[in-house]
Every structure is written in structure tokens, then in C-alpha cells.
């Protein structure tokens, strides 16, 4: 189960809508081992593509060094799909490399940049195996 606060949840959706039709991506960091998604970091999709996302390699290093300095890890790794459902693609599964993370998929296929509900789903991806989990949105993390 992913427990996430409303502000972070809304910000991920807003990021996805803003970057549509390209895929948006980012992480939510939290203290190592805490499973608390506390600090949203929107990343640039270096691929700038509607069908692929990749963090820029220099920004990736800066992000991880910042997390290491704070004793954090990526609790959530999110990205959007802009024409397909919010389910990990074969590429997503093949490249998933944070076994402790919640992989959040948002789909903007229905409303694009506009107002309207979006699919927001969360998965564990470990050794090529995908398992969906419940998402619980709370006013604030306990």
C-alpha cells in the first residue's frame, strides 16, 4: 500500500498535466527505510518524449547525492503515460531498479492538459514482477 499526502498527490497530477503530451517524471524522497514519501522532486524528462522518459544523467547524480546527504531514498518513482493506461510498460518493468520504491503511474490520456480526473496507480516492480497496490491519500502523513 502507498500512503501519500493530498498535496504531493495533487502536485504529481499537476506535473503530469503540465508536461502532457510528453511524459512527466520525478520522485518523492523520504527517510531511508521509513516508507514516507515526504519530499517531491520534479525531474526534467531528458528524453522529452510522449513515449519515453529518462532523468538526465547529471541531474540524476545530483539528486542521489542530495538524498544521500539527507539519509533519504526514493520512496516513490513516478512518471506519466500520455496515451495509454497507467500500468507499467515492458520498458518500465525492464528498467525498474529501485526494489523498495513505489512506482506510481499517472495517465493523462483522457484529459491531457485540461481539468479532469486522471488515473493514479501504484505498483511494486521487483525482479521483473509487477504487483499493484492500493493508494491511500491522506490530508497529511501521520
Amino acid at each position, binding site marked *: 500500500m502507498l500512503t501519500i499526502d493530498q498535496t504531493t498527490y495533487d502536485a504529481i497530477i499537476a506535473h503530469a498535466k503540465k508536461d502532457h503530451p510528453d511524459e512527466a517524471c520525478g520522485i518523492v524522497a523520504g527517510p531511508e527505510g521509513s516508507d514516507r514519501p515526504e519530499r517531491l522532486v520534479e525531474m526534467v524528462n531528458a528524453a522529452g518524449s510522449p513515449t519515453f522518459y529518462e532523468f538526465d544523467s547529471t541531474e*540524476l547524480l545530483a539528486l542521489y547525492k542530495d538524498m544521500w546527504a539527507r539519509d533519504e*531514498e526514493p520512496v516513490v*518513482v513516478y512518471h506519466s503515460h500520455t496515451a495509454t493506461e497507467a500500468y507499467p510498460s515492458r520498458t518500465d518493468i525492464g528498467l525498474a531498479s529501485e526494489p*523498495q520504491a513505489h512506482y506510481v503511474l499517472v495517465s493523462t490520456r483522457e484529459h491531457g492538459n485540461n481539468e479532469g480526473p486522471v488515473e493514479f496507480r501504484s505498483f511494486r516492480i521487483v525482479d521483473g514482477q509487477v504487483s499493484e497496490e492500493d493508494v491511500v491519500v491522506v490530508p497529511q502523513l501521520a
Partner: protein
Amino acid sequence: MAVEVRIPTILRTYTGEQKAVTADGATLAAVIDDLEAHHPGIKDRLTEAGPDNQVGLRRFVNVYLNDEDVRFLGGLAAEVTDGDQVVVLPAVAGG
């Protein structure tokens, strides 16, 4: 040439869960060979043979030498000196 190599979570199964290990070598290729000697299996997760059979870094593995992406430093041929820091990070990417 002893260097510290920072190991990402996904590869710590090869290093007994250690976050960082030391390795020797005058080039990145030699450092990776030394890693392989002590942590068998890790080399295959970092490198692959290209279409011309030349071994290179895997496309979705980033290696940094003193904070610089080694792709800008000659890849596996990048020269390493004592005390350098090597960081391995899998790409965060997908489709």
C-alpha cells in the same frame, strides 16, 4: 590505484549489502574487473558487448568518476587515479 565505488541498492546483492566497496585499477575497465574478482556477477550488470563485440557500459547504467559521467571521459577507458570516487547509478527511465 585504490578507489571507492558507490554501489546502488539493486546491485548490493553482489557486495554483501555494502553501499561502497574499494577496488583497484588504472582505468575504469580495470576497476570493474577488480570488482568482478571480488564480487562475481557484478560486471555483467555494468557492461555488455555491443554489436561490434566491443565491451561497453550498459546503456541504462550510469557511472560517474569524481561526479562526471564517464561517457564524457572515454567510457571504460577513463583513467582512474588513487583516491578517485566512482559512483554507479542505474538510469531512472522507462516508457
